[in-house]
């Protein structure tokens, strides 16, 4: 599949009908999804035939893209039933092999960490999510923690940490983070003992999604990151 074919197919993915600010629902633009998935597939061979997890899948943009690139299986998880309903329609429409499971990354994480701290090494496995084994590839566009009053600070790292603990020793995680946090992400990667490799900086045009946003459009700079456990030999 060519780049433009993937991007064009992803244009048909329906977005959030009524985005929920408490969940920071901003749909991944098809172009950005294409860059992420094509990097994973072309440069590293991390999509075709692989077991892929789309963590916080929303209406399914990344997972459906992985399905179109012939992932072996795709599971999308999200906490929002409304988003999942739209995601299921998108999956049926795109005719890709992707299943959805409703999970709460935030609550699961807290359960997993009861009595323990999150810093230092990675949780042994799973981050409190209901899976018996790890995935080959985890893709995510995490919430960035823009709402300071919602104790959401560091939520992108919480998602990233969960993604890493659901990724097999020879697998990889692809994630987006604000470019302004680049140094911090690198440090966090070192602390967790994973390889953190920036794959490029992209301009994400957020069209006005919520009432509190004053401008009708806003550009933010995001980095595409690839993370893998140090044991992976490439």
């Amino acid at each position, binding site marked *: 599949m060519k780049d433009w074919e993937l991007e064009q197919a992803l244009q048909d993915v329906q977005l959030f009908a009524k985005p929920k600010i408490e969940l920071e629902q901003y749909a991944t633009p098809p172009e950005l999804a294409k860059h992420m998935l094509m990097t994973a597939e072309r440069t590293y061979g991390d999509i075709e035939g692989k077991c892929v997890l789309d963590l916080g899948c929303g209406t399914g943009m990344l997972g459906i893209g992985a399905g179109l690139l012939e992932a072996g299986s795709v599971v999308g998880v999200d906490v929002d*039933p409304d988003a999942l309903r739209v995601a299921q329609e998108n999956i049926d429409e795109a005719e890709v092999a992707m299943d959805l*499971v*409703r999970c709460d990354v935030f*609550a699961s994480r807290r359960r997993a960490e009861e009595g323990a701290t999150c810093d230092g090494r990675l949780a042994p496995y799973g981050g409190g999510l*209901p899976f*018996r084994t790890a995935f080959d590839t985890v893709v995510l566009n995490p919430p960035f923690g823009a709402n300071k009053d919602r104790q959401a600070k560091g939520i992108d790292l919480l998602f990233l940490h969960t993604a890493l603990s659901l990724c097999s020793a020879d697998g990889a995680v692809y994630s987006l983070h604000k470019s302004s946090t680049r140094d911090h992400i690198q440090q966090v990667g070192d602390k967790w003992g994973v390889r953190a490799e920036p794959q490029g900086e992209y301009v994400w045009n957020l069209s006005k999604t919520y009432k509190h946003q004053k401008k009708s459009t806003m550009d933010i700079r995001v980095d595409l990151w690839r993370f893998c456990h140090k044991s992976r030999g490439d």
Partner: protein
Amino acid sequence: MRGLTHNLLACLKCQGYPLRLACTKAEHLDCELDVEQILRIHPKLDWAGLQSLFGDLKGFLEDGVVPLPDAAPANLAAEEGVLKTLHHLLEEVKVVEGQLECPNCQTKFQIKDAIPNMVLNEAAPSE
């Protein structure tokens, strides 16, 4: 939810596995058997989980599906019948409505519109 995802799911509370499935509605998806693909994911599959699912889904499988052997065949590539069963069980049967139950702690998780709800407080309101 297809069988492939059932094979990965464990209890949210206690990691109990495999989750028992009481299916009330299923659909058959139309997809071609890709032997290479089955062989590729085979090492990741849990055989006991497959057998449990096969038993739970009996009434929803197409006619003439051969049962799974007690253990994973040493040379799966040569076992045409088993490959067909795996393909049907993992990729073709889509569970639309039903309930998953943990074999250890008996926590129940509902499946609606093909989506298992693994969020605890709503999945187990009695607790």
